[in-house]
């Protein structure tokens, strides 16, 4: 409820400064401006908030390493609507003259932002959207990603499925970029090892009427099911899968988002689900424990993958400022510095590939007692093939 008070304060503050904040203030003081373009309303709001919280925590923790640079945040709600993306990106670029832009969650929005920001001086860091194109055909020197490409969490799962002895897999996801790319990445390694995709189902996004498909899976009786769903869809799918009695009979594999931030809502239904992801809450890395406690102290709840990705975006910025001794006026220097960073992430150290996508471990996790428990490293220092990128 404390949010309501903040609201009232914000109303006053903006009313007073709305007229001033545009260009008059831009010249003085020169703080480092970080534009945040994430969804704070609608279906992706939780992801947006987590990313923003992680970002702010990183910069707060690193405040002493910034060589006196002040940080100013400008936050804009994308509503996950691509139609507004270029306009909001333009606001951050031209109106606020942001040095860094963090966003978005939704890959359609990412396209609109990239269109606006590609080749500009502002550095864009994507803290979630996994769209292959962003670090593929549309890659750009000033566009970085601290999350993943949709290929990364799914590709190693093909080998995992083969190792477990599954020969016939039923693959199901939403018919949109992330869904298609996830299933394709899985099929790439699974079929290369001799596995067979018995059925590939792409449902219209964001339909969550899964029951008929679960019945279909029961009928087809494959060795295992591979899936990508996230958020509400992930909860619904896992629940339907369990409700129709398939849990324990046909193993359920997935891209890690199937069980990220959703375990509480899924309850027992998620037990035994195996997923691949570049992070796990219980990951045994010192940085992870430290981060989780710090996040909990700051915000009163434990972080999820989206917070980690936001946090690493913040670390990338902070480390770059630190290495440049607080002077970020030379954008070429900013980019080349950031390219060479090794980020000490809660997910384990990672570096950026040529296409500016993280080179990172992907872990195989299994849900046990409501927790994603790391079973093994499914792929070590995995680099996205970045097909189509000319960097």
């Amino acid at each position: 409820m404390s949010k309501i008070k903040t609201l009232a304060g914000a109303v006053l503050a903006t009313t007073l400064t709305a007229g001033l904040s545009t260009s008059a203030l831009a010249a003085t003081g020169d703080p480092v401006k970080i534009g945040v373009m994430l969804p704070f309303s609608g279906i992706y709001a939780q992801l947006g908030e987590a990313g923003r919280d992680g970002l702010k925590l990183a910069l707060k923790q690193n405040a002493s390493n910034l060589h006196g640079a002040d940080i100013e945040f400008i936050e804009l709600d994308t509503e996950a609507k691509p139609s507004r993306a270029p306009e909001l990106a333009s606001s951050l670029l031209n109106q606020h003259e942001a040095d860094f832009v963090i966003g978005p969650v939704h890959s359609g929005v990412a396209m609109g932002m990239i269109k606006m920001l590609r080749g500009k001086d502002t550095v864009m860091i994507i803290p979630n959207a996994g769209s292959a194109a962003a670090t593929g055909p549309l890659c750009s020197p000033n566009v970085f990603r601290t999350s993943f490409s949709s290929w990364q969490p799914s590709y190693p799962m093909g080998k995992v499925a083969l190792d477990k002895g599954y020969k016939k897999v039923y693959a199901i996801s939403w018919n949109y970029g992330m869904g298609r790319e996830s299933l394709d990445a899985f099929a790439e390694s699974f079929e290369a090892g001799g596995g067979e995709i018995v059925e590939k189902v792409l449902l219209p996004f964001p339909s969550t009427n899964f029951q008929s498909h679960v019945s279909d899976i029961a009928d087809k009786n494959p060795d295992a099911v591979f899936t990508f769903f996230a958020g509400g869809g992930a909860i619904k799918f896992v629940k339907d899968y369990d409700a129709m009695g398939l849990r324990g009979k046909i193993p359920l594999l997935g891209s890690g988002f199937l069980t990220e931030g959703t375990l509480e809502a899924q309850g027992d239904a998620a037990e035994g689900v195996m997923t691949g992801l570049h992070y796990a809450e219980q990951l045994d890395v010192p940085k992870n424990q430290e981060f989780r406690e710090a996040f909990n102290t700051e915000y009163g709840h434990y972080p999820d993958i989206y917070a980690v990705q936001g946090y690493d975006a913040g670390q990338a910025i902070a480390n770059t400022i630190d290495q440049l001794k607080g002077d970020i006026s030379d954008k070429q220097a900013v980019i080349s510095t950031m390219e060479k960073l090794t980020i000490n992430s809660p997910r384990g150290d990672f570096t950026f590939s040529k296409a500016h996508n993280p080179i990172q471990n992907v872990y195989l996790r299994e849900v046990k007692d409501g927790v994603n428990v790391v079973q093994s490293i499914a792929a070590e220092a995995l680099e996205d093939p970045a097909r189509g990128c000319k960097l």
Partner: protein
Amino acid sequence: MSTELFFVQLINGLQYGLLLFLIASGLTLVFGVMGILNLAHGSMYMVGAYLVWYFVAVTGSFTVSAILSAVIALGLGILIERVLIQRLYNRNHLDQVLLTIGMIFVFNSLQSILWGNDPYGVAVPEALSGSVPFTDNSSYPVYRIFAAMVCIAIATALYFIVSKTRLGMLIRAGESNREMVEALGVNIKSLYTIVFAIGVMLAAISGIIAAPMSSIVPGMGESVLITCFVVVVIGGMGSIKGAFVGALLVGVISTFAAVLMPTMSNMIIYIFMILVLLVKPQGLFAK
């Protein structure tokens, strides 16, 4: 598709259709009696789901939570009708549409402020958590059978109320003739308040019933709204019977479409609706 799978999918489709009917019934009732197109109907569905989630977390009992949520929704309905809708009866229909769009904004925002944006789930109540054997390697959850029965019970109750009781008589009369109802000495204002509140409560009850089977997420209201409109339009706006038939048709068709041609399945119900409207421009059970 084997015969067995055909029947399995038919049952899935009917179950989905029954839930659709429950959501759509309130919408069609309000439109039929008051002529108001309530675009915020989906938000009421969302409110029901969030309320029951909240109360289950607090009280631990699904039954208590369900009753509490339904009562609150009823009160909310009365409040909205008295404070907002009532002022617009003499106005252009589009003003009412605009008002309900404004309400969508407000409810979405309140949901985010009061309950945050994490996705939630409600556990199936203990007594209904079992399942019955179904096919070779799948079973059918008891709760879903229960949910379907609740939907049938509410459909029956609605049918009974509308066709057999005094309130129902007034509702039917109010649909065709405002003056006549007033001549009967009934305050049309209170009738409208009751009908609107019942409409809101029906939407909330569907949210409550659906909560343990689905995920509770921001934006869940808008996603059911359009499907709901398709149902109501196919059946004929304002007709409860039409909504029932429309819901079952949409439920079954979209279920089969989802399996047989998954990528097309969202389009199928629209294509079906367009075909229905081309043959019957006022829906299947037009007044």
